[in-house]
């Protein structure tokens, strides 16, 4: 090893040490509340408010869960959340993909305006939309406490449209022209050529949409007040009462809400690995 290489290695080591000195405390600040959520989910309320801070999980998880289930019917609300999030994700990916496809593939009058309007909706705060949407869905259509009310109104996702439009526009248009000359129908070009090539984007978008639905609190709170239609975040929120707050139950529910998110993320993360289009064109 030459002196130059040695000094480079030493510099690199110093830099890494410095980086760790900054990153490790940041990671602790970020992870500590999550860890305490897990710890609290295993403790009775009395333990949570005990003056002695406990950092190791206890054994009260099952009891907390039983209390949570008794108070809210949590398993049912968890099922509702999973059902709504899955159906919402599938439908929204299909809808936003088709809209994105149309914006890339078809030259039509007003295409730029349509795109501009979609972009503009991104700047609208959700809270501006939610009240008129609620009035329309609950009062005018009378759809409160239905799957349609939970799933359909948020389906059209501007960010998703832009996401998919970007993905399709980056694909070599020759591929679609080639399929067109081969006599393949537009629907099959979309489903058999474009969508498989957009898999990494679809995976990323699916995670975003799934999480958006999973974490959505306000809209389900407004349109699904019936316990049988309640989603898990709303059920957890209902535990915060005026006189009594079951922190052990809330923390247990929060842990159970976090697990599916992790499953979805781990299942889809390999699709983030792009490179699927490698070799399509030189």
């Amino acid at each position, binding site marked *: 090893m030459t002196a130059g290489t040695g000094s480079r290695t030493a510099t690199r080591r110093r830099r890494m040490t410095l980086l760790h000195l900054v990153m490790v405390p940041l990671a602790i600040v970020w992870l500590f509340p999550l860890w305490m959520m897990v710890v609290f989910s295993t403790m009775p309320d009395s333990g949570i408010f005990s003056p002695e801070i406990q950092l190791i999980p206890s054994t009260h998880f099952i009891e907390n869960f039983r209390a949570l289930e008794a108070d809210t019917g949590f398993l049912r609300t968890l099922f509702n959340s999973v059902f709504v999030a899955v159906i919402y994700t599938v439908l929204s990916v299909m809808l936003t993909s088709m809209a994105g496809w149309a914006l890339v593939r078809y030259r039509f009058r007003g295409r730029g305006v349509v795109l501009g309007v979609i972009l503009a909706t991104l700047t609208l705060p959700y809270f501006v939309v939610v009240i008129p949407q609620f009035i329309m869905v609950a009062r005018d259509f009378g759809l409160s406490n239905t799957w349609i009310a939970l799933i359909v109104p948020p389906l059209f996702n501007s960010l998703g449209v832009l996401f998919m439009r970007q993905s399709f526009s980056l694909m070599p248009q020759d*591929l679609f022209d080639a399929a067109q000359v*081969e006599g393949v129908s537009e629907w099959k070009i979309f489903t058999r050529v474009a969508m498989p090539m957009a898999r990494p984007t679809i995976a990323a978008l699916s995670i975003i949409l799934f999480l958006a639905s999973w974490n959505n609190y306000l809209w389900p709170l407004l349109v699904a007040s019936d316990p049988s239609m309640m989603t898990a975040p709303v059920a957890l929120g209902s535990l915060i009462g005026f006189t009594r707050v079951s922190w052990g139950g809330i923390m247990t529910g929060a842990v159970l809400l976090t697990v599916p998110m992790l499953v979805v993320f781990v299942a889809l993360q390999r699709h983030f690995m792009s490179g*699927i289009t490698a070799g399509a064109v030189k």
Partner: protein
Amino acid sequence: MAGVSLSDVKKRFGAAEVIHGVDLTVEDGEFVVFVGPSGCGKSTLLRMIAGLEDISGGEVRIGERVVNDVEASDRGTAMVFQTYALYPHMTVAQNMSFGLRMTGNDKADTEARVSRAAEVLQIEPLMDRRPKALSGGQRQRVAIGRAIVRDPSVFLFDEPLSNLDAELRVQMRVEIARLHGELGTTMIYVTHDQTEAMTLADRIVVLRAGRVEQVGRPLELYHDPANQFVAGFIGSPRMNFLPGTVVSRGDGRVRLRLERGGEIELPLETLPREGAAVTLGIRPEHFVPAGQGDCDITLEVEVIEHLGATSFVYSGTRSGAQIIAQRPETPESAEASEHAGERLTVAIPAARAFLFDDSGARLR
């Protein structure tokens, strides 16, 4: 199989007209090459024939059928793209059979056609590979295979060899020529490479700015260009152009003085007026040794390219009035060759020179 005919075909993108009324007939089984510089409209014209671009005016016929309003899929054409356009998530076999599968073709027939095309193109060992596992040449073969399985009446090639390296390009050029010989199908081929055009075409269509400049057999274009643009475009290296002025005329001959010095007399049927500005064209390979032609010119040698069998002497590259002279190369001539900075006198034979007026039209 079918011929293709275009009559007064126009293309507009918004207010801009990019194809200005093209008339052309491609005979059944003919190999026609569209050639021209970038932006001349050759690819647009091909895409209009394929049905990938709308036709703003005029009529396109494939066989006897007017196809202006016929979908691309129903025109009976197959197209090979510069980018290969292979579906990256499918194997070679799936790529080749995709169109037939999606249009409900019989499964056994599809398989038979794919294996026949694979055999013709010698890509059988590659059938289970994905495009990313293929070389450029192999990808282009697969793209051609995908066109063959459709058994089209017209093949359309859009600069299919532009992404290949020089050696592969020559190899694939030969393969395409062989394929045309075997299939006998009408082929329309777009390229900006005049060597490809000269070697492949039965007829070449030279395009410039959305207009057809000349249509003809390769050697016809080389020996008898219609104008200065075609004369400059066909032939490699390009034709030299020397500006001059007509000093006298009469008796079926015109005498001109070249700006760079020297006078030459050419036989002409239509004589330009005295004092008219003209351009004399002479190909690099048509210069003869000093004293053996009709007008000697002296070149300041700037660069010499030795290609083995022949060499090119470049002069005037700095001044913009470039002249290239081709010289045969032998072991002796290499020894006695000129060097940069020296002078070389060559002669223009009047019989091999072309004359163009100030608008670029050929004077005959």
